[in-house]
């Protein structure tokens, strides 16, 4: 079972391949055209119903999308997100009272700069997708990955949730009822026209804004330099994923969207779950693969396609002519073991052919994961979150944690010994001793502290960039640290990341300096109660 090339010839029962045409298991009349899961054969009509129903059931079960909300659909052009787009169209167009009620927008991120495509190829893909988007009549935004270089650093902060009311079932139902009431009060004939004309007028205006400013070759080169400085494909994919998410987040915030729908299918999420564990993101599994991802505060990411296997999506797209554009990515035609994500993908897919319940088992397991603490934890300091992925920092642990053990063993396995002033709790183990000598006079108030000098001062003296790059690691969670470690030139990172890192480091130093004057939370309560 755990060998690389196992052969089960003759030991397993071979799956019985039916020779006669089977009947659909649902309606029992039509000929089946498709087998889903482990043996349910469906006919065309029943499959379509099943597919559409699953989407609406997924949204209805998790009542997070309120009527009238603006929802951004992240479409990459691939089969799952194109399918999601068509489901949203389908759901919004029904006249039944149970139709979906939200205002959609589309975003497409052109990643050609990172995956090495030429401008013509990128423009061709964008043109193809634009024609698809125009047919839907929703606003769309085409964003190039190069724009990540000019993002503001506010992207990295988790905003506060827009609605403070608890998301209970009763408030959802109340909101839906209220929405239906207001719709009824409007003139029934004109309401549909109103909505349509409003949307079309907005989209006329948005089309100019939809395609963002043209990118210069310098931007593309800077982006390529960033990705070229990353040594492994694993880290590249991880970095690309993070930057993409930041771009989507920024667009959602500036355009007023409160929800983002991502088109991750069941198979893709199963692969993501396993590869995240391998990457060191086990602590944030629940938010990374669950239905809703609330860690950004004001923008919630939902994944309505998480119940569909890639087989179902591919068949649906084929049978009902859903347009999708294939765009090569970073790992197209890569070797089997080129990156952790890629090898996990081939592992899960291969296992799935022999054991068809693999993906659904992993999916069920991920459903059982929940976040332990409430996501809106206002007591958490803003910089107790990872700089890049905004999950809780898991590296600021006490002296005797497993993480410190890995640091020590890493330190010991390097050629040079520990530098002066090295302590297990330091943010930057293994810093070469030469850099402290090259700092010169340092005017930081903690003048006697060796620590302050070595780990960089940010604003207090104009030192070289080198101390800053070391600081980055202390602001990151374990897996982001691994990604940054694979980079040879950290200053190739976009400006917003570097400046936010600088700001947080200064803040934490300031906090340290005035720490004796700050009251802890429980001390404050005690003193207030005491005075009463």
């Amino acid at each position: 079972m755990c060998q690389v090339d196992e052969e089960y010839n003759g030991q397993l029962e071979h799956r019985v391949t039916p020779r006669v045409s089977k009947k659909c298991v649902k309606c029992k009349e039509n000929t089946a055209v498709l087998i889903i899961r482990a043996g349910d054969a469906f006919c065309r009509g029943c499959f379509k119903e099943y597919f559409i129903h699953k989407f609406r059931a997924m949204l209805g079960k998790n009542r997070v999308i309120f009527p009238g909300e603006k929802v951004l659909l992240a479409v990459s052009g691939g089969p799952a997100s194109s399918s999601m787009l068509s489901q949203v169209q389908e759901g919004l167009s029904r006249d039944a009272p149970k139709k979906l009620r939200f205002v959609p927008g589309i975003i497409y991120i052109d990643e050609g700069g990172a995956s090495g495509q030429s401008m013509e190829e990128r423009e061709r893909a964008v043109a193809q997708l634009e024609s698809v988007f125009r047919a839907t009549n929703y606003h769309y935004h085409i964003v190039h990955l190069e724009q990540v270089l000019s993002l503001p650093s506010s992207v990295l902060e988790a905003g506060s949730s827009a609605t403070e009311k608890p998301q209970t079932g009763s408030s959802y139902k109340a909101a839906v009822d209220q929405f239906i009431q207001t719709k009824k009060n409007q003139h029934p004939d004109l309401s549909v026209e109103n909505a349509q004309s409003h949307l079309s007028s907005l989209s006329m205006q948005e089309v100019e804004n939809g395609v963002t400013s043209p990118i210069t070759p310098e931007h593309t080169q800077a982006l390529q330099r960033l990705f070229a400085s990353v040594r492994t494909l694993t880290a590249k994919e991880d970095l690309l994923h993070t930057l993409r998410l930041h771009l989507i987040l920024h667009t959602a915030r500036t355009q007023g969207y409160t929800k983002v729908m991502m088109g991750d299918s069941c198979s893709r999420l199963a692969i993501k779950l396993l590869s995240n564990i391998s990457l060191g993101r086990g602590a944030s599994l629940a938010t990374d693969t669950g239905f809703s991802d609330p860690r950004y505060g004001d923008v919630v990411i939902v994944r309505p396609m998480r119940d569909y296997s890639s087989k179902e999506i591919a068949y649906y797209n084929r049978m009902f002519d859903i347009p999708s554009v294939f765009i090569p990515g970073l790992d197209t035609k890569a070797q089997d073991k080129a990156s952790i994500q890629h090898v996990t993908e081939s592992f899960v897919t291969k296992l799935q052919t022999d054991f068809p319940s693999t993906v659904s088992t992993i999916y069920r397991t991920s459903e059982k994961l929940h976040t332990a603490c409430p996501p809106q934890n206002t007591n958490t300091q803003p910089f107790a979150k990872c700089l890049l992925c905004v999950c809780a920092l898991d590296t600021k642990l006490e002296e005797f944690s497993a993480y410190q053990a890995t640091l020590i063993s890493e330190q010991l396995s390097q050629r040079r010994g520990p530098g002066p002033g090295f302590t297990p709790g330091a943010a930057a183990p293994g810093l070469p001793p030469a850099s402290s000598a090259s700092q010169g006079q340092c005017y930081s108030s903690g003048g006697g502290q060796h620590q302050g000098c070595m780990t960089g001062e940010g604003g207090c003296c104009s030192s070289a960039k080198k101390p800053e790059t070391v600081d980055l690691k202390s602001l990151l969670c374990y897996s982001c640290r691994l990604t940054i470690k694979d980079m040879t030139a950290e200053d190739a990172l976009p400006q917003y990341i570097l400046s936010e890192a600088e700001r947080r480091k200064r803040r934490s130093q300031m906090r340290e300096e005035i720490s004796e004057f700050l009251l802890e939370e429980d001390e404050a309560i005690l003193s207030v109660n005491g005075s009463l």
Partner: protein
Amino acid sequence: MAAPIAIHLEFGGGAELLFGSVKEHHVTLPNQSAPWDMKQLLVWIRGNMLKERPELFVQGDTVRPGILVLINDADWELMGELEYELQDKDNVVFISTLHGG
């Protein structure tokens, strides 16, 4: 005794990259005594059409895991998978599901 069979092949989901980025192919399978089945078709494709990286399309006897096959718009599992015998003017579609969305 089988006459040459005309088959319409389609590739989607990224699989077309291995075939010169051409999605649709009309091929005529040459004459042979035994009827053509899917297994032989795969061997034929591997030998005559695959431009590069055969291991990304064919694995051993069958297609690589993650590639779906539709014969005349029906799942090939319902038709017998590799043992299905090809008829003239059949439409065989290969869709790769390995590139997400």
